């Protein structure tokens, strides 16, 4: 039996970055907010203290911070001719779990997207013509501009204390920063992290070739910082346990280290952990959300009525909840119609490995986002005309870790085990270096999310099905970027160099990034998007859907800065527009 709870003003599904930001802004506006989180409460000192936080086996191999597939998973296939099967161990991407969400385990690479990324179709068609794009590519404009989002990027970066060097302040190009970035209103809140040897060498090589290297913007802080909420973050110790790990030193920006200490003091905020939302409820009209139904850890089912429902779960689960709750028209790839599940996209990364005789890199001196990058080959920063593809990515020497289990690089011909392998690992550990490209992944007609016809979860709901493969455009992009990266790495003077461009087909068992995107995208009209420019559902105006779910395609950057900025953008729209006149914020 479902028991009905007293109504609240706002219910938030998921207490990661976006849930925390919206809860903070809306409690600040005087609303009563209840956040429902599927996983446990997580606290820095008690959940990842320095005494054991750096445990690669527990966190990286055994996925301690992530959702258990037994609790919820999805099925996967490359294309419609295949039968999708359930993912039983996370591989390609890592769904987060618990308070803080992905903000706990991220590398803290804090990138803004390019101005052209937000008007991608208009921009590319304008420059190259409609025919230049592959026929089945479904990229779209976002419905907002970089300038719309700039103040919100700024707010998120100052919440996090992001360390970096501006490349463009109010239109003036700054030496040492990224000259391609959109204009920012001011410098980063803290200076860049100190660079180890590898990134320094990469930057020298890149500069020698006429590129403009710059330090990667980082949420691993270069120095102590107290944010506008009064919360203090410490300096990074360069321990190299960021991605997959919680930071026990209070030095990586996460909801725990930036916003939750202020949020939990608010008397009009409540968090319910270990509670899984099973459904978003609609009233009889079907045009208004009446709240959510959730199940607690004892299996009791509760209904939480609310005036406003904010879907703030991980990208894939936002789409899953919309599909299983029957909100919005599901996407049909054959007809190319419908919006929920449309424009799913991912990321296309590649790497160049290099083995040196005369250099010691000390890979264990690392932080999640320490590194020197170039942006010459990202987005539309270069002429794609001669190359026959669109998209791109940043590239560089990003020294994220030297963890003992997985950072055991050996040259290609080395045996996979035994004495020769051990010898090669010992020889290469300090003197090898891996540089990376972080490429875009555009959207296509056949790539989508829908409900699986066969498999169900523990509540009897149909699992969500992923249909995804890389397309020629992305593979060409990856080969091109990897070749350009290899040219720079060659200048670093290695004995041996190995290119690893991304190749198809997509393999769901091989980790790349957790940057899955789309499925309920924002846009300018309800025919081709699930959300309007304020991330408000076109169909159910008291429902807002946060996160990378709204990205119409994925640029060649990490998503979190944009996810945070969009959350502030939506919070601003709710407080200053929606509350004054609840209803659709965009009229068609």
């Amino acid at each position, binding site marked *: 039996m479902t028991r009905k709870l007293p109504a609240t003003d706002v219910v938030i599904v998921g207490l990661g970055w976006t849930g925390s930001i919206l809860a903070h802004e809306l409690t600040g506006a005087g609303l009563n907010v209840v956040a429902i989180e599927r996983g446990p409460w997580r*606290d*820095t*000192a*008690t959940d990842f*203290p*320095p*005494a*054991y936080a750096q445990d690669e086996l527990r966190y990286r191999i055994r996925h301690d911070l992530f959702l258990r597939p037994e609790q919820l998973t999805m099925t996967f296939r490359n294309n419609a001719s295949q039968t999708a099967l359930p993912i039983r161990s996370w591989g390609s991407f890592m769904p987060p779990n618990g308070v803080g969400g992905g903000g706990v385990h991220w590398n803290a690479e804090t990138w803004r997207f390019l101005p052209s990324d937000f008007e991608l179709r208009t921009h590319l068609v304008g420059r190259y013509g409609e025919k230049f794009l592959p026929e089945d590519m479904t990229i779209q404009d976002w419905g907002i501009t970089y300038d719309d989002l700039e103040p919100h990027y700024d707010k998120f970066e100052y919440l996090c204390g992001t360390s970096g060097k501006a490349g463009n302040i109010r239109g003036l190009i700054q030496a040492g920063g990224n000259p391609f970035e959109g204009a920012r209103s001011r410098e980063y809140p803290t200076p860049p992290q100190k660079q180890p040897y590898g990134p320094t060498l990469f930057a020298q090589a890149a500069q020698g070739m006429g590129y403009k290297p710059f330090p990667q913007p980082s949420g691993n802080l270069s120095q*102590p910082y*107290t944010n506008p*909420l*009064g*919360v*203090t*973050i*410490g*300096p990074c*110790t360069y*321990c190299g346990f960021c991605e997959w790990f919680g930071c*026990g*030193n*209070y030095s990586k920006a996460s909801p725990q280290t930036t916003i939750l*200490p*202020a949020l939990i*003091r608010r008397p009009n905020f409540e968090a319910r952990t270990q509670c899984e939302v099973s459904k978003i409820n609609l009233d009889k009209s079907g045009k208004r959300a009446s709240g959510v139904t959730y199940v607690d850890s004892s299996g009791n089912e509760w209904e939480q009525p609310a005036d406003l429902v904010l879907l703030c779960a991980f990208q894939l689960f936002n789409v899953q909840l919309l599909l299983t709750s029957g909100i919005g028209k599901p996407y049909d790839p054959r007809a190319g119609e419908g919006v929920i599940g449309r424009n799913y996209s991912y990321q296309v990364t590649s790497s160049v490995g290099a083995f040196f005789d005369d250099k010691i890199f000390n890979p264990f001196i690392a932080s999640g986002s320490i590194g020197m990058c170039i942006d010459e080959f990202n987005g539309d920063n270069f002429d794609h005309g001669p190359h026959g593809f669109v998209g791109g990515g940043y590239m560089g020497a990003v020294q994220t870790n030297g963890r003992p289990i997985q950072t055991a690089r050996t040259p290609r011909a080395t045996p996979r085990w035994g004495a020769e392998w051990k010898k090669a690992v010992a020889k290469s550990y300090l003197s090898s270096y891996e540089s990376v490209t972080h490429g875009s992944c555009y959207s296509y007609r056949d790539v989508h999310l829908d409900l699986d016809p066969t498999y169900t979860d523990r509540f009897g709901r149909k699992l969500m099905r992923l249909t995804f493969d890389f397309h020629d455009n992305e593979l060409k992009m990856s080969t091109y970027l990897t070749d350009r990266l290899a040219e720079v790495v060659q200048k670093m003077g290695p004995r041996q160099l190995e290119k690893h461009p991304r190749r198809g087909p997509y393999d769901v068992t091989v980790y790349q990034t957790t940057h899955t995107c789309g499925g309920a995208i924002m846009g300018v009209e309800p025919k081709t998007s699930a959300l309007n420019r304020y991330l408000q559902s076109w169909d159910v105006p008291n429902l807002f859907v946060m996160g990378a779910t709204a990205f119409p395609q994925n640029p060649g950057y990490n998503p979190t800065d944009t996810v945070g900025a969009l959350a502030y953008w939506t919070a601003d729209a709710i407080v200053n527009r929606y509350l004054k006149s609840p209803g659709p914020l965009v009229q068609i």
Partner: protein
Amino acid sequence: MRMRNLMTLALAGCAIGLAAARAAEDNQAFEKIERGRYLVVLGDCVGCHTAPGGKLFAGGAALETPFGKLLGPNITPDVATGIGAWTESDLWRAMHEGIGRDGVRLYPAMPYPSYTKVTREDVSAIWAYLRTLEPVRNEVQPNQLRFPFNVRRPATSTWDLINFKPGVFQSDPAKSDVWNRGAYLVEGLGHCGTCHTPKNITGGDRGGEALQGALLQDWYAPDLTADPRTGIGSWSAEDIVRYLKTGANSFDIASGPMAEAVENSTSRMTDADLLAIATYLTDRTPRIEDTAIALAHDDTRMVAGKAIYEVRCAACHISSGAGVPNLFPRLALAPLVQSTDPTSLIRVVLIGSRAAATSAAPTAPAMPAFGWNLSDTEIADVLTYVRNAWGNAASAVPPTDVTTLRGRVSR
């Protein structure tokens, strides 16, 4: 309402002089109630009279004493279980003389040896405020002391004869008004000595050693004198104000019972009162003590301790012991680190500790527990190192002290 007015009239009828003027005062006037509310903040009454998660002032917060456990009683105006049947004079007698209604002597866990210095006007305002609270029916059995301490205290208590001298605060005409206000707060309602003044065998304050640091509830409340090494001699008045206001300054972050005092009381005080407290504290004579000499760097305990520090502690507290302001307390030249009694240090390493959270400094960083993967000797060594590195000098920590405290805090 009518009853209260009658009571006021009755009191007015039998009082003379100042008391008459006071009784004629309207106990329901906003100004008086608001002043009483603030005085209750100054006295941190919440600390003992509100149980964790319980109703405000309905009692039940536990205080561990060397003689057993005492619970703060219900001080809401509930007739049956609170102080609903009390008169204002009953409260005055309790605060001023340590004698409750019907002549019951209070245990000095109720800091009447400090509260006796509070003026009658202030007690009257506190009374006016307490009367406005919603009566909460909550039976608290305050006395949970071990035998023989649980036996009702006789009308003429030996303890009081030895340890207690009633008397309202007398200002020192040689000092400024600000200094006198600070003295009134520290010695009176603020009852700082309850934790920070060393105790004699009966639990009474050791005369002449006021605020020199004391052990209580397995925490060492540090020396608040101007001693530059173990006291707060190197803190400016601004440093003290910032600490009390926010729970953190560039030297230290409040944790343990002080975190509660900051959260409930000092962070809610006016800036003028905090400055008064700081003015008084910075003007006190440092305690006279033998100067400590740092242990040699090659002492085996120092060598072992340094290795542990670098692996387990330096990531937060920095290799130089400098810490990070508002986040990780500084250890170099820190008074608590060099205190005569290392109990607090041992405790936080064994079971961890969470810092105070205030609106001005909401971070509330926490120290994780290391008791589960450091041995008693390792903890003793690392603390011995911390107490004797970077210009610090203090006695070595014996492993047996760690063993003893481990037994107590892991009970």
